[in-house]
Every structure is written in structure tokens, then in C-alpha cells.
């Protein structure tokens, strides 16, 4: 098993603009979009700041010199307004599908395995269906701060909160979802890599927020069932 540090450090050069190692089906969509926006804004950034510096040097004040007297002209206004508008709308259009796929109400694959999650100050309690693979049956069991899933198979977590708002965040999977008390919120994802990762709370939920952490273990498909039937249950939380 890869340890969490390795999993993230693989790309974890501080001061890099690259995203850390990703291992879920969302990584493709989100990272691609991120790098697109990074390129666009990066170019805009360099262009604007460079021009600014050039202007500052070229048109620095010199005695006896008068500035060029103008109130502006419309053509440039039209150009830069138009260009910006087109670019941002374009960004919006290419973003929409990915958004629908990840968060859309009907985005959840029908064959996704269902898990339960109850977030509380300051623990994650995951409910597993047990060997029979069905939630709400006698062999369900609950683990503290441990999320176990099988690789390459979609999982949908129905999350609720006992007290305040928490946020389910697995950086490697590029997934984040607030968990709001009084609501049953469905989060789905599909890990693509066996290993161990970290899950954190991303919404200030009290003074224990900073260590409301869970370990995510992605099993190979075949030993997931074995785990579900055996070692997993032995750890089960007292109900």
C-alpha cells in the first residue's frame, strides 16, 4: 500500500502550480479544466503585468514633457470588453458538463455501491452494508474515521450530520461536499488507484475541526469483499 505522504508527495514540490497526484475518475475533468484556466489566466497575467511595467518605464515622468491628451477611444473598449466576455463565457460553457457529471442530481451511476456516513463533532462514522451488500440490514457495521472502498467501482455515500456543517474532502479524489445537518446529501466517486489516502473536514466545525480526519483505504476489487466480511467488522463501533 502506498502511504498517504508518498501518494501526495509524488507531485508535491512546494511552489509548484501542478495539482497533486489524483486517483479518481473526476481527476481528468477537473485537472484538465484547472490547467485550461491556469493557461488562460497565466497568459492574461503575464500580458497585463508586463504591459504595466513597460508603460511605467516608457512613460515615466520627465520634466518639460506633457502627457498625450485623450479621453480614450471606443474601439479598444469594444475589443477588450468583447474578448473578455467571450473568454469567460467559453470557460463557463466548458465547465458546465463536468459540474453536472460530478454534482448533478442524476450524475450518480445506478450501479454505485451505497455507504452511509454520519459526520459529528469531530468524527466520521461510516456505515458499511456488510457481506450482504445492503444497507439497513442486521449485518451493517459502522467504523470510526475509516473509509474503505474498492478500486474502479463507483461508490455513493449518503451523508448526514449530527450537529454542525462538515465538509467531506478527499484531495486525491478532487471531491468535496458540505454535509449539512437536516439534509441527506449524496456524494459519489470512483477511485482509480489502490492505496491509502486522507480525508479531511473542509468546513470549520468547531475547535476539533483541525483533526477531523479519516483514512481512506482503496482495496483491490477481490479483497474488498474479504475485508467487508472479516477484518472490517471486527473493528465495528459499538452501537
Amino acid at each position, binding site marked *: 500500500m502506498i502511504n498517504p505522504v508518498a501518494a501526495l508527495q509524488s507531485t508535491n514540490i512546494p511552489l509548484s502550480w501542478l495539482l497533486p497526484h489524483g486517483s479518481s475518475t473526476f481527476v481528468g475533468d477537473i485537472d484538465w479544466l484547472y490547467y485550461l484556466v491556469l493557461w488562460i489566466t497565466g497568459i492574461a497575467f503575464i500580458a497585463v503585468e508586463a504591459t504595466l511595467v513597460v508603460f511605467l518605464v516608457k512613460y515615466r515622468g520627465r520634466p518639460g514633457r506633457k502627457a498625450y491628451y485623450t*479621453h*480614450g477611444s*471606443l474601439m479598444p*473598449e469594444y475589443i477588450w470588453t468583447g474578448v473578455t466576455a467571450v473568454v469567460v463565457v467559453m470557460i463557463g460553457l466548458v465547465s458546465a458538463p463536468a459540474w453536472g457529471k460530478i454534482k448533478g442530481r442524476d450524475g450518480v451511476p445506478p450501479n454505485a455501491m451505497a455507504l452511509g456516513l454520519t459526520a459529528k463533532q469531530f468524527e466520521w462514522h461510516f456505515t458499511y452494508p456488510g457481506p450482504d451488500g445492503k444497507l439497513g440490514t442486521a449485518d451493517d457495521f459502522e467504523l470510526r474515521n475509516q473509509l474503505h472502498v474498492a478500486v474502479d467501482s463507483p461508490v455513493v455515500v449518503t451523508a448526514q450530520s449530527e450537529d454542525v456543517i462538515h465538509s467531506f474532502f478527499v484531495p486525491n479524489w478532487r471531491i468535496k461536499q458540505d454535509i449539512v445537518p437536516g439534509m441527506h446529501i449524496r456524494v459519489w466517486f470512483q477511485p482509480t488507484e489502490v492505496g491509502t489516502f486522507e480525508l479531511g473536514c473542509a468546513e470549520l466545525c468547531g475547535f476539533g475541526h483541525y483533526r477531523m480526519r479519516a483514512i481512506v483505504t482503496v482495496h483491490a476489487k477481490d479483497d474488498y469483499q474479504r475485508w467487508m466480511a472479516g477484518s472490517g467488522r471486527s473493528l465495528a463501533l459499538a452501537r
Partner: protein
Amino acid sequence: MTHGAIAASAGVMRPPVDREAGAGVYNEKLGMWVFLGSEVMFFTALIGSYIILRVAHPEMWAPPGKVLNVPITAVNTFLLICSSVTMVKAFASAQDGLQRPLCLWLLATCIIGATFVGVQAFEYHHLIEKGFVPSEGLYGSTFYTMTGFHGFHVSVGVICLSFVTWKAFRGKYTSTDHRGVEVVGLYWHFVDLVWIILFTIVYLI
């Protein structure tokens, strides 16, 4: 945009025009209108939340008249509307410089306003005795917050009104300058309007 830009770049050099007649109204009146804008947003926040919560949990509201006493409040509403009428009368007499009627109409408005608050206080007392308190649930929470803050606005209005009335009795308002009366009138009509909305959505629906 084209015309705008040209107009302005020309306008920059245009020879002086006369002062643009601001809003065409004196400061106090304009100020009150602007202030009422912010009041509208305040009540929008309260009423909006009420609607959102109620739509989400209709079962938490008792049917109209079950908990709240509609007849008494209806009378109270009628009173408040009357006070708007007396306010209009007061303003009219101020415009015609009729001192006596001005004072009397203002006084009437004060008294009716005070009565409204009194009746509301009585209603609260009664409801709380019946066990209908803010902590009872969403129904109580929204009811007391909305009507309470309206009541607070009415009380403030009554205080301002009595000040204006006092000035009226000392003959401070002329047919040419009676800003105090008009401005407090604006506020009063606004408070009245808000109540009509509240009465409808809180008591009748």
C-alpha cells in the same frame, strides 16, 4: 455605450449647464425615501425567510385562526389603515395651513398608532399564556420575529409622530414649510403597508 462615450468625452468639455435639478425634492423627503429602501430590504429578509421556511415545512403551521385570533387582529389592521387616512388628512391640512385640524389629525394618528401597539401587546400576552412562544417551533419563531419588528417600527413611528404633533401644537408648521409632517407621514404609510402584507401572509394564509 457609443453615444454615452461620445456624449461624455464631449460633455467633459461642454460649457457649464445649470445645476441638474437633483431629485427635485428637498433633502429630508429624498432621505426618507432612500431610507425606506433599506427598510424594504430588512422586511424582505424577514418575510423571505418566513416564506422559505414555511414552504419547506408547511406542516409546522397551524391553519389560519387556529392559534392566532384573526378577528381582533383584523380590527387592529383596520385601525392602522384608519391612522393612514388621518395622517393624509393631517398632511392636507398642513398644506392648507389649517393649524387646528393639523394638530387634531396628528393627535388622532398618534392615538390610533398607540392603540395598535397596545392591542398587539395584549395579543402577545394572551398567546404566551396559551403556550404559543417563540421557542415553540418555526411558527412561533417567525410569527414573533416579524410581528415584533413591525410593532417596534410602529412604536418608533408613534414616538416620532408625538414629537411632530408637539411641534404642530406649537405652530411650527406653515402651509409653505411642513416637512416634518410629510416625512413622518411617508414613514407611517410604509409601516402601514408592511402590516397589510404581514397580516395577509401571517394571519390569513
